[in-house]
């Protein structure tokens, strides 16, 4: 049995101050998130983009995702939470068919993008409409400009040329909030940027394809708190233009930025609902235990 409410926090006293203990105003049934406060107001519009229908994914005989159904909407940030190995990353990867790269993976059920089954898409064209950002910042070993331009060009081609892509590269970097920091030297090697800048470059890259859905797999777990905040603000801004799905281990983060939260456990979708409701008054016992830190 874990804490029903988060433990009291003792703030370190400054010189000449009495140490004081901050007790979170737990609301009886159990967690401290409500007090943490949400960062954003709910978004006004919500357009259905993707739908996951009774999706099951197995690696060999091991079931990783078990009959999950979910909507994914533009105008909302959907956070997938759950303990390690619960299938949230697998679910995320199935949305742009990256699961197919694993030889043993098999998939049942249906995922649609704007009404069309994604199984019928060419993987390359699907992945331009549903792009992804990974846990580790992984810019390509080229300049900042070329990282974005690579996505804008046809496969391995060097065309169109740099000056014709300038506008699009700038707009992608602006949307990712990186433009001001890199505009002076777009030829800078991307791998020399700081971790947070690299991750925003990866987001710029993912946005350059003008996707309908942006997938983020624990995008802040390798970053410091400062960079994390910058990226969180960015995600919230982006939800108006693209549907955002984020996998996170960080419940506070999910609470700060998500409009909807899906809690997964052992491959099953235990609970799906608006962030306020899922964190404030979870309907399922397991959800309540997880978000109050009892397991996982």
């Amino acid at each position: 049995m874990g804490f029903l409410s988060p433990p009291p926090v003792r703030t370190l006293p400054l010189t000449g101050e009495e140490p004081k203990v901050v007790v979170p105003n737990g609301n009886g049934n159990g967690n401290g998130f409500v007090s943490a406060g949400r960062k954003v107001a709910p978004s006004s519009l919500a357009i259905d983009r993707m739908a996951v229908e009774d999706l099951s994914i197995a690696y060999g005989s091991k079931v990783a995702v078990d009959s999950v159904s979910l909507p994914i909407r533009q105008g909302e940030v959907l956070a997938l939470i759950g303990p390690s190995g619960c299938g949230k990353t697998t679910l995320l990867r199935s949305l742009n068919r990256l699961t197919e790269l694993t030889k043993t993976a098999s998939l049942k059920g249906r995922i649609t993008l704007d009404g069309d089954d994604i199984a019928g898409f060419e993987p390359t064209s699907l992945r331009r409409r549903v792009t992804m950002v990974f846990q580790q910042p992984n810019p390509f070993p080229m300049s900042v400009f070329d990282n974005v331009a690579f996505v804008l060009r046809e496969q391995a081609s060097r065309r169109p040329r740099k000056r014709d892509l300038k506008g699009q590269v700038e707009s992608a970097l602006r949307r990712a909030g990186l433009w001001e920091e890199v505009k002076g030297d777009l030829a800078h090697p991307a791998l020399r940027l700081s971790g947070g800048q690299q991750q925003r470059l990866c987001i710029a890259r993912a946005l350059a394809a003008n996707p309908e859905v942006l997938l983020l797999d624990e995008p802040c777990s390798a970053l410091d708190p400062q960079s994390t905040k910058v990226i969180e603000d960015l995600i919230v801004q982006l939800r108006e233009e693209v549907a955002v799905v984020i996998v996170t281990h960080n419940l506070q983060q999910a609470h700060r930025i998500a409009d909807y939260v899906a809690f997964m456990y052992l491959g099953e979708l235990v609970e799906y609902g608006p962030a306020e409701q899922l964190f404030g008054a979870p309907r399922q016992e397991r959800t309540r235990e997880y978000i109050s830190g009892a397991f996982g």
Partner: protein
Amino acid sequence: MAVAQTPTARRSARDSSSSWRWTDRLGLAFAWFLGLLFLVVTVGIVIYLMVQGIRFVKPEYFVTSPSAGFSESETGGFLDPLIGTLQVTAMAMAIAFPVGLGVGVWLSEYGRPTWLARLTESTVEMLAGTPSIVFALFGVLLFQSPVLAAFSQKNEGIVFGRSFFAAAAMLSLIALPLVVANVREGLQAIPGHVREASYAVGKTKWATTRRVLLPAARPSVVTGAMLGVGRVVGDTAVIILLLGATLRINPAEGFLGEARGTGSTLTSFVFQNAPTGEANQPEKAYAAAFVLLSLVLVLNVVMDFVVRRGRRLTWGS
């Protein structure tokens, strides 16, 4: 991010050695001893050859062709062997590099079906372990066959079987495993998420390999090519059996005469002019050995530079 160990971290590791057991200290001392021993031996060889060589090197050797004569003052320089070395190396690498790059990429990125990949891997390993004299002998048999007559010269129906083509083809087999191994290792060292990041923006496997993976693996690719060049430059057996070891470059008539003709390289020149060789002109041999050694050393320095420059930037795993 792979960050170089900071000086403080290294110092603290050394400080902690004060608590080492005596067996560890003995081991450390032994390691130091062996390290220094090899260093002394290697540096000794290099310095000896450099000193010996530089005494005998004359600028005119670089611009005069070797010729027959009775004393070392009459026998000219090593212009032809020098050109021969460059030419045969270029030709061998022109075969080994693209093939090795292709095989390395295939092994690392495709590798299907698995049995074929395994077979390829063991074949390449076998090539790496084959003595070059065996390649040379095989090359003689191969290129003397009438089917491959076009690659060398023919005299009254008899295929000579010796040419720059023949030597380069066999030398490329010596360089190939080094190129393959380095390309493959370089590609495999790239974390999987980097590949996925490229697929995840709609790139094909080929575009990913071409534009992301190969540029990232460039230091390894260069290392492989340079190591290959080093082996090819230094090989003697194949040259003696397959290049004809003629005093001067002796082009054949007709199409691509240079490549179908015979010649010699610095290695075969040293071999023949060494005190145990046919010509026995030790001064020329030392001079040529000096040039050969300098070539290889320069190559190593260049390689080191390229590799260091490339390795500084990398991803977390």
